[in-house]
């Protein structure tokens, strides 16, 4: 992998995202997370100004004021972007709060990457109000005005609590039950109960269980007492590596760069990284590497930010020299996760 080329690509993205990304403006913090975490993995974070990043991220946090009642049904976290953020009225009352779990996860992840001490984040009302998003079945809504509930937001909630080292925002038992309900007959996990097993859903399930402390490192050696059907899961996961070396997200679908992370990270968390044919995977990923930096979804296409990021994380899981190692369950580097 051409590390310098990719660093330049990520740096360019850092300074200006091309117009097509405006359609994802609402997830601006997520786009920023992809760029900044890319620079970190590529060991190139020294190219950007960390304090400016921290201040910018913190400016998306919702501060409801002291009078806000955490039981009013709202969630007070981070806005995803400027278009959803509105100034308070003349009396200082916040009329529009569209804090989002995914944006909040990305905000905290970026802050950790740039070395900001999360104990300085005002997180009391964030955690207390996060409970308003958890549903009776244990799943999470992403935003209090309503939205699809699925494993992605269980993961975001778990990662937020883990990073803040405070689990008051999640009913872990309920979340666990929901995750277990998402394990399909074939061993993988769908995004909601009954849905088809999916690489992304399986990552959210396993990473959440790991972050919540329900499964240990190297689950394989202790699989007898496990909550989930580990042998069936492992069989499903291992078989996602295709003939071309890449990983697919579902059986009988084309292989795709991003699943090298979603599936690779699950194998890593399960302690089963040795089941991957690393050489073949590397060969596949290189066919998706763009000549001017970045990775595409499929071989020979134009790159995009999302697949570039998961291309970098995949190379990190492959222990490519010069790349920082990854904390698979948090989706950031080990150094960022440990606050080093």
């Amino acid at each position, binding site marked *: 992998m051409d590390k310098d080329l990719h660093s330049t690509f990520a740096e360019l993205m850092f300074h200006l995202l091309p117009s097509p990304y405006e359609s994802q403006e609402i997830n601006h913090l997520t786009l920023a997370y992809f760029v900044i975490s890319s620079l970190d993995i590529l060991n190139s974070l020294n190219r950007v100004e960390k304090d400016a990043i921290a201040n910018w991220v913190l400016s998306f946090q919702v501060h409801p004021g002291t009078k806000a009642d955490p039981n009013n049904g709202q969630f007070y976290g981070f806005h995803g972007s400027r278009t959803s953020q509105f100034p308070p009225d003349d009396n200082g009352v916040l009329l529009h709060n569209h804090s989002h779990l995914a944006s909040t996860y990305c905000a905290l992840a970026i802050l950790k990457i740039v070395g900001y001490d999360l104990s300085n984040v005002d997180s009391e009302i964030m955690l207390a109000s996060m409970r308003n998003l958890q549903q009776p079945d244990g799943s999470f809504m992403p935003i209090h*005005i309503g939205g699809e509930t699925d494993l992605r937001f269980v993961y975001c909630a778990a990662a937020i609590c883990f990073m803040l080292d405070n689990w008051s925002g999640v009913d872990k038992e309920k979340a666990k039950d929901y995750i277990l309900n998402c394990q399909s007959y074939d061993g993988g996990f769908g995004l909601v109960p009954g849905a088809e097993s999916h690489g992304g859903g399986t990552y959210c399930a396993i990473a959440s269980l790991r972050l919540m402390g329900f499964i240990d490192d190297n689950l394989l050696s202790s699989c007898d007492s496990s909550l989930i059907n580990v042998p069936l899961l492992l069989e499903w996961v291992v078989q996602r590596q295709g003939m071309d070396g890449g990983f697919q997200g579902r059986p009988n679908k084309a292989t795709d760069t991003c699943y090298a992370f979603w599936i690779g990270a699950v194998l890593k968390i399960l302690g089963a990284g040795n089941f991957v044919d690393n050489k073949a995977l590397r060969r596949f990923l290189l066919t998706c590497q763009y000549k001017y930096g970045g990775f595409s979804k499929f071989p020979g296409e134009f790159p995009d930010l999302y697949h570039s990021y998961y291309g970098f994380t995949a190379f990190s899981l492959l222990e490519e020299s010069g790349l920082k190692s990854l904390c698979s369950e948090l989706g950031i580097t080990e150094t960022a996760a440990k606050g080093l």
Partner: protein
Amino acid sequence: MASGSSEVEEQEQERVMLRDRPEWSDVTPLPQDDGPTPVVPIKYTEEFAEVMDYFRAVFAADERSPRALSLTAEAIHFNAGNYTVWHFRRLLLESLKIDLHDELEFVQRIAADNSKNYQIWHHRRWVAEKLGPDARNAELQFTKKVLSVDAKHYHAWSHRQWVLQALGGWEDELDYCSELLEQDMFNNSAWNQRYFVITKSPLLGGLEAMRESEVLYTVKAINVYPENESSWRYLRGLYKGETISWANDPQVSSVCLKILSSKTLFWILSVTVINRIKTSEMPLRL
């Protein structure tokens, strides 16, 4: 007209900027403030920035008007994932008492461009929920249409499962799965839906009642394409929680033997055999 989408279509020919439209002359756009040090800025097009600035002004003023509704349609056209816009649209649909059947058509048109977007499906569900059982056929038809273009469309399948559970319509679902599998035996989404139907349909009596006929169906499918992972996993799923009967069912043994005696040895089969040997009380004679 009420949903504002026909306006969008006309404007695609030659779009007039909002500032040049007389009906918007009384509105002062509310620009977004990205602070003194924007990070990872996006190179907005002029059209995008303008639509969102007008949207922000109208939303902040909480203007519940037909022109606001049509503005949400324009904003959705530019960024279909913007949940603030969709949220305001739902408030407007309620305030203006719009016929929600028109809204289903609007969603269908938006989905034609970009159906892989969570907000569109969330909105669709909101509308269908409001319409209740009335919406059942429209929703089953809509997902069928999406699936006729992409038979593995994850959002469409999720929506369809929700429709079946919330609004009903199970009668033809098993036949629909068979139809899709006939078109493509390798369609894992259709196998998954089949499993969903036989375990969840109130009309079929559950997994236990369906096992025998489903094993027969699946063994046939495996004989046609022994390399198909989906059918093998489905077969295994039919014995969920029943390792003993899985290990002893003569139908499973015979399909394994038959495939083994043919020239090619498939990985999935060897896993199945090993798994059966492990879980079997009696050694499997091969």
